[in-house]
């Protein structure tokens, strides 16, 4: 079958720097072509070229076999090529249906045909198994549901080619299943799909073909059949990835953090747990189970009741500053909106949390500069230029910078929420190494994650949350995906029984 959209020998330069060195890539109706590679490998650039956002510096695009030039992304959209972004393209203040029909509203005369739009929006969402009222404001939706709206919008435009940039990065396992099922159906209907993800098991599950990029070079394109996850990882990284997770150093018995009956109104009820010196404590649970809210309540970012004791001393509630002084810091899951100032340089980001360590009144800029040098080497942050903006770093390097910023406050207890979201496998391995080193050096770490292998691979002990409760705790051999899921879902069922809707 001929390709509906293909790139031939596509190169792309930004200024003098070439980021894509001649890539051939084609999308065939009824096939899923996966594009994988580390952050900064050129995946986004290639996708943007195919989606009409960027033009190739050399080489050409073929649409149904004949050369084509897209002037902009709207031009590509008219040809039936739609891209779903990692960062959502939704107007938060508008409703779901308004977003789905944004730019192509149905009209009757000069007036909007709201009835028809609502019906069609509902139908599109139903196809996605997404139970959201089309009249809901997007700002009020959870992140996974926003993802579904984004996909519904693409479906509504009858896409022939769908370019999906890490659609499952923010989804839980169950939501991922729904999405993959939907992608399967789109494939059966003859849509050509470009799919990227850092989760290689998904690639193995749904891809027909796989292309691997590394540093802007096309390493290989092959049938997905028989391409193991290990082989994919090796092709992406260019070296053998031995064990992803480092060995765990045993924790001590000394309790450093005691949380008693912590309640975050509407989100978490009566959560109690302890954390020991040198321990990595995992927090698992479905999205919406209150993990993030619990941690934010613990460090004073949210109003909460209950007791938090560090080394036996109660911490003043509701104050991030007090928590920091007690040695507890929280590394947010949302590095772009809550973690880093993307428009500021690396130094200002690095020292923002621990600025008081750089001079009492006048900021010691030389010390700041030295701290940046140290952070770049300690955390292996790959920078082109020390004066660059944090927003110009790749996702993995942003995460390392955020980690460096947090560690500069010299905490004893580090809470890391989704330590590797949207990060390539090589950087993941490094971050797991940092976490293990922290614990081995006598600090205590809480890892909150939706990726079960990550929780299992890093933690000494795992607490499972379900709908705002601590559902249970697992240690040693008991830490398995099956046990975690059973706890997470078990509580959900029990609550459903006691609180009839």
């Amino acid at each position, binding site marked *: 079958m001929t390709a509906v959209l293909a790139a031939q020998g596509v190169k792309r330069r930004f*200024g003098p720097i070439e980021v894509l060195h001649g890539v051939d890539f084609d999308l065939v109706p009824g096939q899923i072509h996966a594009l994988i590679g580390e952050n900064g490998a050129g995946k986004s650039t290639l996708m943007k070229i195919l989606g009409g956002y960027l033009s190739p510096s050399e080489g050409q695009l073929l649409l149904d076999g004949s050369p084509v030039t897209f002037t902009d992304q709207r031009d590509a959209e008219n040809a039936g090529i739609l891209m779903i972004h990692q960062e959502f393209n939704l107007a938060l203040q508008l409703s779901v249906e308004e977003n789905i029909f944004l730019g192509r509203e149905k009209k009757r005369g000069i007036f909007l045909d709201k009835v028809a739009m609502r019906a069609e929006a509902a139908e599109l969402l139903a196809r996605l198994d997404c139970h959201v009222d089309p009249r809901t404001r997007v700002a009020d939706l959870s992140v996974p549901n926003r993802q579904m709206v984004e996909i519904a919008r693409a479906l509504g435009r009858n896409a022939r080619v769908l370019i999906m940039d890490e659609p499952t990065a923010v989804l839980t396992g169950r939501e991922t299943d729904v999405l993959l099922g939907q992608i399967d159906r789109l494939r059966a209907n003859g849509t050509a799909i470009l799919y990227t993800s850092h989760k290689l098991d998904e690639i193995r599950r749904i891809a027909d073909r796989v292309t691997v990029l590394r540093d802007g070079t096309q390493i290989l394109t092959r049938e997905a059949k028989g391409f193991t996850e290990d082989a994919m990882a090796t092709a992406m990284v260019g070296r053998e990835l031995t064990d992803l997770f480092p060995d765990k150093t045993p924790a001590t018995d000394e309790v450093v953090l005691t949380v008693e009956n912590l309640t975050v109104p509407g989100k978490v009820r009566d959560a109690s747990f302890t954390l020991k010196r040198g321990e990595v404590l995992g927090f698992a649970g479905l999205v919406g189970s209150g993990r993030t809210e619990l941690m934010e309540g613990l460090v004073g970012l949210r109003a909460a009741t209950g007791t938090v004791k560090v080394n036996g001393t109660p911490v003043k509630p509701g104050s991030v500053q007090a928590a920091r002084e007690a040695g507890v810091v929280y590394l947010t899951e949302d590095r772009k909106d809550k973690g880093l100032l993307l428009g500021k340089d690396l130094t200002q980001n690095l020292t923002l949390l621990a600025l008081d360590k750089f001079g009492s009144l006048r900021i010691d800029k030389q010390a700041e500069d030295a701290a940046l040098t140290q952070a770049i080497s300690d955390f292996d942050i790959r920078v082109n230029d020390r004066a660059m903006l944090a927003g110009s770093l790749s996702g993995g390097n942003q995460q390392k910078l955020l980690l460096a910023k947090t560690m500069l406050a010299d905490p004893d207890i580090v809470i890391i929420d989704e330590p590797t979201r949207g990060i390539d496998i090589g950087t993941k391995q490094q971050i797991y190494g940092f976490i293990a080193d922290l614990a081995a050096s006598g600090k205590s770490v809480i890892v909150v994650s939706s990726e079960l292998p990550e929780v299992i691979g890093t933690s000494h002990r795992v607490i499972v949350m379900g709908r705002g409760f601590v559902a249970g705790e697992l240690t040693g051999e008991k830490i398995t995906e099956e046990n975690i899921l059973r706890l997470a879902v078990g509580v959900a069922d029990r609550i459903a029984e006691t609180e009839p809707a």
Partner: protein
Amino acid sequence: MTDITASEPKPRRRVNLHVLGPVLALVALIILGASLNSNFLSYGNVTNVLARSAFIGIIAVGMTFVITAGGIDLSVGSMAAFVAGVMILSLNALIPSMGIGVPLIATGMVIALATGIAAGFLNGFLISKIRIEAFIVTLGSMGIYRSLVTWLADGGTLSLNFDARSFYRPVYYDGLLGIAWPIIVFAVVAILGELAMRHTAFGRHCAALGANEQVAKYSAIKVERLRLMTYVILGLLVGVATIMYVPRLGSASASTGVLWELEAIAAVIIGGTVLKGGFGRVWGTVIGVLILSLIDNILNLASIVSPYLNGAIQGVIVILAVVLQRESKSAD
């Protein structure tokens, strides 16, 4: 920072131009003024321009922090009139008990500063603690202060007692080593402001807050207190400006300080501070103030363009400054 290889010299040169832009504009204005009128660079004219810039300048330095932290204050002009009114009424009321002398004027100054701080605190409290939009709060307080001063003056003019005024006059008209007091105060405020913006945690935190409030909050910055502080400092500086302003005319009325807020905001923007926050330059604001008052001065000295077009030219400059800012941004 010298060890960085200049791999991308092109964008860097543009950024420099962006930084230099306001300075070049100021130099151009000075050359233009000097060539049009031989009196332009005379001691008298320079002192006159700088001393008159001082009121807006002192306020604009405070405004730089408010805008950098993502806020705005439309009430400063009315606030200045109100503070002036309160100060004059207090001075007049205190003359019988205190007599005319340094203690009287000092007490008046303290009252002016306290009134400014209180007014700024009220704005800041409503904005940071009650979480009402800065634009709305200060639009409201602009009307309130303006109306209060009109009411205090009963629709007319509040005049300082003649003898007290003669005693107080030197604060505007005299100086140190030939430099007028308002110019000295403006310079001190500007230097302290520049140091605070660039070299202290306060300035860094203001920029962080303006760039992204969430990141600031998650970085253990006391966001509410910081925002409140920017408005209190601005109120204090309005008080300082008023202390320098009252001895000039010795009166306050409903028309005192009209449009000062817009001039101050314009100066901040011309100076390169980003209106939506996240980046501020105090020295740029000083240049912005000077540019605005030089345009006024040149139009009055030279008769090529009517001085009535002053506002139009200033308007063009403000818009141009923002256009230049945007271009340099997309070049990054």
